[in-house]
């Protein structure tokens, strides 16, 4: 039963992303063309909420479920991987309008065509795994 909480969080995530229309190709198009504040508003509100919440965890006001202080691992220093990988992901996001979360959400919502995107994403992930040691990070 310890997995039920993850299932419920996932359901909340799927509903919010669908009802906010962040899963919509049209909303991503609109965002990249600066034609609506909607997506920027969502990301900014999420980051502000997240920043405040994480600060509360960090100063120890809130402990996690196991009663441990929260310590999120810092990202490794670097530039090339973050930037080049980021640009490549952005090209895909701008083309098919789906980041990884929405890929799964849309398939659940019954958009079978997104299965083709998932197939591509799995192949892309696999290619990265094959090439990892040869890529600059």
């Amino acid at each position, binding site marked *: 039963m310890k997995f039920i909480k993850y299932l419920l969080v996932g359901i909340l995530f799927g509903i919010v992303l669908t009802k906010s229309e962040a*899963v919509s190709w049209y909303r991503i198009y609109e965002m990249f063309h600066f034609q609506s504040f909607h997506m920027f508003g969502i990301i900014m509100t999420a980051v502000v*909420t997240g920043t405040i919440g994480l600060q509360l965890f960090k100063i120890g006001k809130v402990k996690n*479920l196991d009663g441990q202080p929260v310590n999120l691992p810092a990202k490794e220093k670097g530039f090339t991987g973050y930037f080049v990988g980021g640009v490549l992901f952005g090209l895909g996001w701008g083309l098919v309008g789906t980041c990884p979360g929405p890929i799964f959400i849309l398939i659940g*919502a019954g958009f079978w065509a997104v299965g083709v995107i998932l197939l591509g994403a*799995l192949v892309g992930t696999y290619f990265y795994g094959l090439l990892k040691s040869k890529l600059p990070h």
Partner: protein
Amino acid sequence: MESIYGTWPWYISGFLIGGVMLLLVYFGKTFGMSSNLRTMCSILGAGKSAEFFRFDWKAQRWNLTVVLGAMIGGFIATHYLTDPQKADTVVLNPHAITELHSMKIDVPDGKLLPDAFTSAEALSDPKVLAVLLLGGLLVGFGTRYAGGCTSGHAITGLSNLQLPSLIAVIGFFIGGLIMSWLLLPLIFN
């Protein structure tokens, strides 16, 4: 009070997404959707040919459970939290409508995704299939190379004031702007 059947406002949606990230932190985990793609590759046997996929994927079952939940959430939202009588899903800026017409992409009219990408007819077009595959490929390769996607970098990383995440998010937008402004009109003309 707006109806929950319409488009949820950005401030409620953003707050809830931040909340999802914080709940996972509270459970002792971190929010990251693209990691699941790596896990799925491992389950499919990618570890035979690449060291990157040789890890204990069972430790990621919690995240696969989040994915399953997200799929159920997508189903609930489209089937029970959307009013089919009203075409009020995705009301776009009129400029976007004009641009969609010029690219011959159908306007939302109550839909989340264009028929131009998702209808049975579209899927029999090799060009559309190639676009979906290529887009997926870029999403899969790019997120792993960057070490995260919108959830891991834009939401979690920025909230945790991580410089690498800011670099990645700037990359996301540069890639998206190039695609949306320069390449999309070439692909769909």
